[in-house]
């Protein structure tokens, strides 16, 4: 049985919010990230190792989402795109003022390389019936974010499980 409205049902499995990254993948962030976590993997520091193993430099796989976080400020921008817009759309459409992410999976495909221009798409995979947890009453949903490079090759898929809810005792549709 499903108790979802037709407009939310219709979004399941649909690619939404295709967006290009704001800048090409670059090594400065690779080194900043490796430095921040003291990652001495020679793949990222020694070009001879990168040439031998990965056909040239690559970015650490776990940096996938880094390439899509918007600049803190950019000229002429009147609204910041949210990396997980569907999550915020669902909170609003379902009248669930609170939300948490409960689980995050990243699957790594082709390596991401300096100079790559990545594109992302968001896909709603599922929305659960209403459930009550210790946080409150609401629904779990799964959102996938697909990342491809300029050649159209898949470089990764992130999957987020969110739980949108109302605290016990609050009314449906209360503004966030």
């Amino acid at each position, binding site marked *: 049985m499903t108790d979802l409205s037709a407009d939310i049902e219709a979004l399941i499995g649909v690619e939404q919010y295709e967006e290009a990254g704001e800048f090409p993948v670059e090594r400065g962030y690779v080194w900043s990230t490796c430095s921040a976590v003291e990652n*001495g*993997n020679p793949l990222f520091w020694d070009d001879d190792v990168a040439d031998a193993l990965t056909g040239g430099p690559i970015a650490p796989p776990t940096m996938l*989402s880094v390439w899509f976080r918007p600049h803190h400020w950019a000229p002429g921008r009147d609204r910041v795109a949210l990396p997980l817009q569907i999550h915020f759309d669902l909170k609003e459409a379902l009248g669930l003022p609170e939300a948490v992410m409960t689980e995050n999976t990243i699957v790594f495909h082709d390596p991401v390389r300096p100079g790559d221009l990545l594109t992302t798409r968001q896909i709603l995979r599922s929305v659960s019936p209403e459930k009550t947890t210790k946080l409150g009453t609401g629904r779990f949903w799964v959102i996938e974010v697909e990342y491809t490079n300029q050649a159209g090759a898949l470089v990764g898929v992130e999957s987020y499980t969110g739980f949108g809810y109302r605290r016990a005792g609050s009314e449906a549709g209360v503004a966030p």
Partner: protein
Amino acid sequence: MTTAPRLTLPAVTVGDRLPDLPYDVTATTVVLGALASRDWRPMHHDKDFAVDRNGVRDIFLNTPNQAAWFERYLTDWTGPRGRLGRMTFRMKGSVFPGDTMVFTGTVDEVVSDDTGCGWIGVDVTLSVGGDLKTSCHARLALPTTDDDNPWSRSGDRWTP
């Protein structure tokens, strides 16, 4: 060059423990990690905001930076031929300046797939003072022989 495999699949057995990694977290650790991952949200650099708005005791490590820590922990052990296929994590609590975070890991799977790719599963924990803060499960490809290189795989030969 250090491209020789540090770890190959036949050397790994279910139940193997990775060496623990302890690390003393400072405010600098948190801010460096947040900015390197382009996470400008104030609870990762502004203590007043973290205390007054989030109701926690200090700024805390952001999730994308924790992913980078997990990657570093795993590839410190495998060497550069270790290639991440998949990572799942669950956040249970925050990590603050002054905490000593400790990473531990246990191998829970060693297999070869239909394409001949060698895979291991590792259960990783990040804890502080014995309290689990983040749990992570990773699937990594390891070379099956000294000549094998998981990074050479793509398309149908890479099934993470």
